[in-house]
């Protein structure tokens, strides 16, 4: 079987779906962050695969992927810091219990 663009796209879609499910279903903030990472990675797979099959020789897709990895690292750092701060203040990281800004 020859691996084509469709396979990558399906993997990417599954990955995104898993990430979305994680974000929507998990109560733990860390797990939500992990879901976001999954969705970002799904985007990365898409970018690299499309770069490879649609416009071989171009590097824009790779560069975008690298930018997103960097962004994801930053996001994880800020997100984990927020979670840590929330935990210190509220002694919980369950998002349904973090509701001090709700009226």
């Amino acid at each position, binding site marked *: 079987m020859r691996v084509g663009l469709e396979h990558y796209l399906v993997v990417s879609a599954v990955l995104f779906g898993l990430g979305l499910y994680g*974000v*929507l279903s998990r109560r733990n903030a860390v797990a939500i962050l992990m879901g976001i990472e999954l969705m970002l990675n799904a985007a990365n797979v898409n970018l690299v695969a499309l770069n490879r099959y649609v416009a071989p020789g171009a590097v824009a897709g790779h560069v975008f992927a690298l930018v997103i990895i960097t962004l994801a690292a930053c996001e994880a750092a800020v997100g984990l810091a927020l979670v840590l701060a929330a935990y210190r203040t509220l002694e919980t990281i369950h*998002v349904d219990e973090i509701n001090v800004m*709700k009226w």
Partner: protein
Amino acid sequence: MSLVWLVPLLPFLACGLILALGRRLPGQGAYVAVGAMLLATVGGAILFGRVVAHQEVHQRVTWAVLGGQPVALGLQVDPLGAVMVLIVTVVGSLIFIYSIGYMAGDPRYPRFFAYLSLFAGAMLLLVLADNFLFLFAGWELVGLGSYLLIGFWFERPAAARAAVKAFVTTRVGDLFFFLGILLVFATVGSLGFAETFQAVAAGRLAGPTLLLAALCLFGGAVGKSAQVPLHVWLPDAMEGPTPVSALIHAATMVAAGVYLVARLFGLFLATADHQALAVVGWVGGITAFLAATMALVQDDIKRVLAYSTMSQLGYMFLGLGVLGYTAAVFHLLTHAFFKALLFLAAGSVIHAMHTNDIKAMGGLARVMPSTYWTFLVGTLALAGIFPFAGFWSKDEILLEAFHHHRPLFVLGLVTAALTAFYMLRVVFYTFTGRPRWEGHVHPHESPPVMTVPLWVLAAASATIGLVGAPALGNPFHAFVHAEGVEAAPFNLTVALLGTGAALVGIAAAAAVYHFRWVSAAQLRRALGPVVTLLERRYYVDELYRAAVVGPVLWMGRALRTFDLYVIDGLVNLVGVVVVALARLYRLVDLYVVDGLVNLLGWTAARLGAALRVVQTGRAENYLLVIALGVIAIVIGGLLR
């Protein structure tokens, strides 16, 4: 500033000063008033001297330009004006001084002198005016002064009523006066006396217009000088303080009417056949006679003098009416002195007795010798006994009447006898006989501040007639005379007739009231209806009350009723309608306008409540919606 402006200004300034500072001034303001008056007297004497030296004293300023025509107004002193200024200032000064004593202790003492000064200034303006405008201004201001001073003791209802009566009655005359001025101004185009006389001489003001103007102007004089038929205010004016009666209602203001006719004599003289003068003469003669008869039955010492004043003013008009210009002005001069004297002496009596009723007096000659002797001098002067002042002036008037108008001469002669009778009646009742006063009254002679003016006036009353004595060449006549009128030559028969009439009056009074050959009570009973007629003053007051006052009051009440029910009714109707409409609008407001507003609010609230459910505050829910939305859009896009 010329002296002629200063003379009337001084009393005005004194008035303002006293009104402003009142009791803080020396003598509570009295000294200021007296000082200003004495200064004005000095000024008046200087002006008099200038006129005697034939110097022109005439100052004018242009007041306004009407239709390209300048209206020049000013002050002027001619022989007539000079005499009037001297009368006002000299008699005024004496009365001012007398008032210091008479008004002592009055709660409104400074105000009295302020009013007196106001009056004196206005009177000086009146006699110095060279035009109708100033004359009218002074005329109305003296009326105001008269009103204020008659009503000076306004706590007494009689005084307040008398003040209003005087003001309103003279206003009737003043209306005619004003119409006359307007007529002259419309015809001549100037307010100046000189221009008016020029117009008369040139024939521009002539015929019926001239007659009408003269009669209208005389109307003012009738009101001011209390002549029939506008005489009713003067007796009531005696409610004022006695110095006021002496100054305003005897010596000066009431004589302003005579002055007016004398000032405008050229106007009256120019009417065809002297018609205007005939009216003046008859009004004067009738007033002289009627007033004298009414004085016969008065028991109030001041009212006798008031009627006497009316009578003597009538005499002056009679004199003017029979071409006796000089005689009338001469009588004005002498009358000012002896009538002021009589009033001040009467005031002295009232001051001592605290009553005006001569029947409650008697025998005062021994208690108050100064008052008695001065009053007697005044009485003899008024009665016209040689050589007192009244003899000379009254004789001149009778002389003129004898030459020009016999019926008026007879009227004057009868009046002279009546005058002597009622004056001596007062003297006998007041000063001689047994005392009739109650035990608790302790009459005493007045203080020197009051008796000295009396003596000065008595001296003047005794001697001032000599300036018109034919034996001395009649210097007064040489000084004051009208152009184109010959004075009647002295006639011994007339002089004897006049004196004889006075002596008859005196003898009759003595027979009844001194020797009591005839009982006064019997006389009254015998002449019952006549006495009643005189006591009720010929029912003129009743006539006016029925004919004028009543209808006016009735109309006032009718108008009040109209106002109350019709006008107020309309106003109230409008109010009621507006209130009803307002109620209606309130309902509209409450249910329609408020309803709409509330509906809006209610809708918003319901909508909010419905949408509120969507806002869960859970990020997962929102994310789910976003994700589902994206999926929906994607599916929508694929299916399209």
